[in-house]
């Protein structure tokens, strides 16, 4: 491919992304107007989605880093568990900053164990990950029994309270205060106007700038930082080379073993940071508070095609359903399902236009079923909506696994000095 061709395809893919984003907002806007549910795209909903997405995105970035270096990381879940415990303990001892640091350090321990297993001993990556997932809850529970049980506010499953770093609202844009002076709330005004698409975009931006927890902001700042490290530094180039073709990288003098070790330790600390967010969010460590977020993070890696922005968008999309579910009233959830139905119908129309009849038919049936479901219920079951992220990931894999491009050597056994 020549340089111009690459440039053209980059512009094209950027243009396509913009079109898809605009379409998504139009559909959301339509659903909001039809279902009379301003809650679906309010800044509260988006703010909730972004906050909930932060720990998932951390798990996703952790997976991305490790897979870019060539190691599959199913142990994310376990590293997150270690992170929550470390954050609970250090947060209790040293406050919220201690929680973030403790989460990262404990997660890193899990990452180091994964590195020892896979890089040093050459154990199958998936197997080592499963072993870590099994070991971590046991360690956390054992340590809780030792250090939390019997202390004030602590039990076998809960840590004593951990504080948080507070919230921040942007002045002028979202009405934050400067000292004691109130500023204008520009985005809030647009959002309340209810204009088509504009109000929804204002809702998204309002969610970012109004009342965002400092921990969330810190976590989200990892996305551009990770992008910079992996795509703009010599270390990042070595890291990606280790994931694409380790033997070639080694022949050029890259220390693949060290690169993978460092990537896995960083990966573990990112997952642990995600766990720390959960702790400061609730205000204490609770056994099992990580839910399935480690696995969800793994899904965002694939959804995001092994790119940081993709991981972030995937996490927000996945947690959007969760945030909608948490809003007051049934209308936001119904509006969301309506939006999914409209999307399916639009895809059916597009497929018809492209003369792909089978695809058109299946999407038409899907959208029909969704509309039928909406007609028959007056509230969306939250257990059903909890399955959406996994279904969306499976659908993405089904329809675009040919377009996704994982690192070439991810998951393959490799030892120093090995030729392909």
């Amino acid at each position: 491919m020549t340089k111009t061709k690459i440039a053209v395809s980059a512009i094209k893919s950027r243009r396509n992304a913009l079109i898809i984003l605009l379409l998504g907002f139009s559909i959301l806007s339509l659903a909001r107007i039809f279902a009379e549910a301003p809650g679906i795209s309010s800044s509260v909903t988006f703010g909730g989605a972004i906050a909930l997405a932060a720990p998932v995105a951390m798990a996703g970035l952790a997976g991305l880093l490790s897979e870019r270096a060539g190691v599959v990381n199913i142990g994310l879940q376990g590293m997150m568990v270690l992170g929550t415990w470390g954050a609970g303990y250090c947060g209790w001892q040293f406050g919220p900053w201690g929680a973030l640091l403790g989460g990262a350090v404990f997660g890193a321990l899990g990452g180091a164990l994964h590195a020892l297993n896979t890089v040093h001993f050459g154990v199958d990556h998936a197997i080592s990950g499963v072993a870590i997932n099994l070991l971590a809850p046991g360690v956390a529970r054992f340590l809780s029994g030792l250090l939390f049980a019997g202390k004030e506010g602590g039990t076998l499953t809960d840590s004593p309270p951990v504080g948080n770093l507070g919230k921040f609202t942007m002045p002028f844009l979202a009405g934050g205060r400067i000292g004691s002076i109130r500023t204008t709330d520009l985005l809030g005004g647009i959002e309340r106007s209810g204009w088509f698409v504009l109000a929804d975009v204002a809702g998204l931006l309002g969610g970012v700038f109004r009342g965002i927890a400092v921990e969330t902001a810190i976590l989200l700042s990892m996305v551009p930082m990770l992008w910079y490290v992996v795509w703009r530094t010599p270390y990042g180039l070595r890291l990606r080379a280790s994931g694409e073709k380790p033997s070639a990288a080694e022949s050029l003098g890259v220390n693949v073993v060290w690169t993978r070790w460092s990537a896995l330790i960083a990966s573990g600390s990112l997952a642990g940071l995600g766990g720390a967010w959960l702790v400061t969010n609730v205000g204490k460590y609770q056994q099992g508070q990580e839910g399935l977020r480690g696995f969800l993070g793994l899904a965002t890696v694939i959804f995001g095609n092994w790119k940081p922005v993709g991981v972030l968008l995937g996490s927000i999309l996945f947690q959007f359903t969760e945030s909608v579910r948490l809003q007051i009233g049934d209308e936001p959830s119904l509006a969301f399902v309506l939006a999914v139905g409209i999307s399916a119908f639009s895809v059916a129309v597009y497929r018809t236009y492209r003369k792909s009849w089978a695809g058109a038919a299946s999407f038409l049936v899907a959208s029909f079923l969704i509309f039928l479901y909406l007609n028959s219920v007056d509230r969306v079951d939250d257990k059903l909506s909890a399955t959406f992220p996994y279904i969306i990931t499976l659908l993405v894999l089904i329809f675009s696994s040919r377009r996704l491009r994982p690192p070439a050597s991810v998951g393959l056994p490799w030892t120093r000095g090995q030729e392909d």
Partner: protein
Amino acid sequence: MIRRSLSSVTTPLLVFGISMALSSVALLIPGYNPITAFSAIVENLLTVSGVVTVLNFSARYYVMGVAVAIGFKMNLFNIGTNGQYQVAALFAGAAGGSLSLSGPINIAIVIVVAMVCGALWAVIPGILSVSRNVNIVVGTIMMNGIAAGLIGYFLRTWFRDFDDNLTAHTKTIPPDSRLPTLNPILELLGLEVPKSTNLHSFVLISIIVGVLFYFVIFRTRFGFDILASGRNAAAARASGVDARRMIVITMAISGALAGLAGMSVLLNQAFEYGDRFPLQLGFTGISVALLGRNSPSGIALAAIVLASIEQGSRGLAVVGIPQEIGQILQGTLLVVAVVTYEVASRRAKTKAIQMASNVSVGQVAL
């Protein structure tokens, strides 16, 4: 040959020794006495109810272990046994609670429903893997997530026993449609069985599964195809094995066995599917298969060891040691086992290569 059988004894012993040492360190740091702990574990095992509980748990771990191992045999990592087993148990529980046929027929139907549902849930990622190239590990993880939500939905709507508004579960299976207890056999042996102790007849089912597993893997064409695909997929394909078909069938068998494993809980213990069902049984199966090296007898040993640690560590509370050390012991055991086996097999490989090169050097010299 002798050396090989020797290493098959020494490696597990080494694994056990290292894990004991590491757990002892974990016990020593907060100041507990490891010897007190281990003797409390053993003591809690050496009672009638201790042995019976270990047998009951090993039986379900064994079947679940075989479910995972049959996938491993052809390098297929079915990490979704947890979802498959729960979906199967939900539908089987719903069927068992609502059917009103006579006992044995009802039992048979419940078991068939469980195996079919488990198989179907496992076949979906299998088909996606062969037709759309969706990674099987990722596919089965997603299916676990979907299963968790769907089960919650069904349990509160369609399949819920609405007579009980405190906890969500399916209708209770009538007494004549449950698997019997084997306590009479224990009494025949002259043992005094405590009231709350039941030896599950599922133990017999697990033995049958073990025999069938051995027979299918080592004595049939299908088993040979599985082993061949696992050792060298390209060579197997070249010799006429349909890899896509094998993946789908193996996933189906794996899922069916995962569904069967849940019947130990449903038909021998809980008699309804609900919140009290073990949440991690499928993942335990993965540990069992890994620890047992996927061999019929190895899995049995692994199942008994893990079940013994689980049951034995319940006795730790008596001597004032947190029983969570049991989970640590299990986890350490798994990590150490995986690493030790890997190192041992790599050593063996290097040795074989050295011996082969020595032979050829010798031949050249002649």
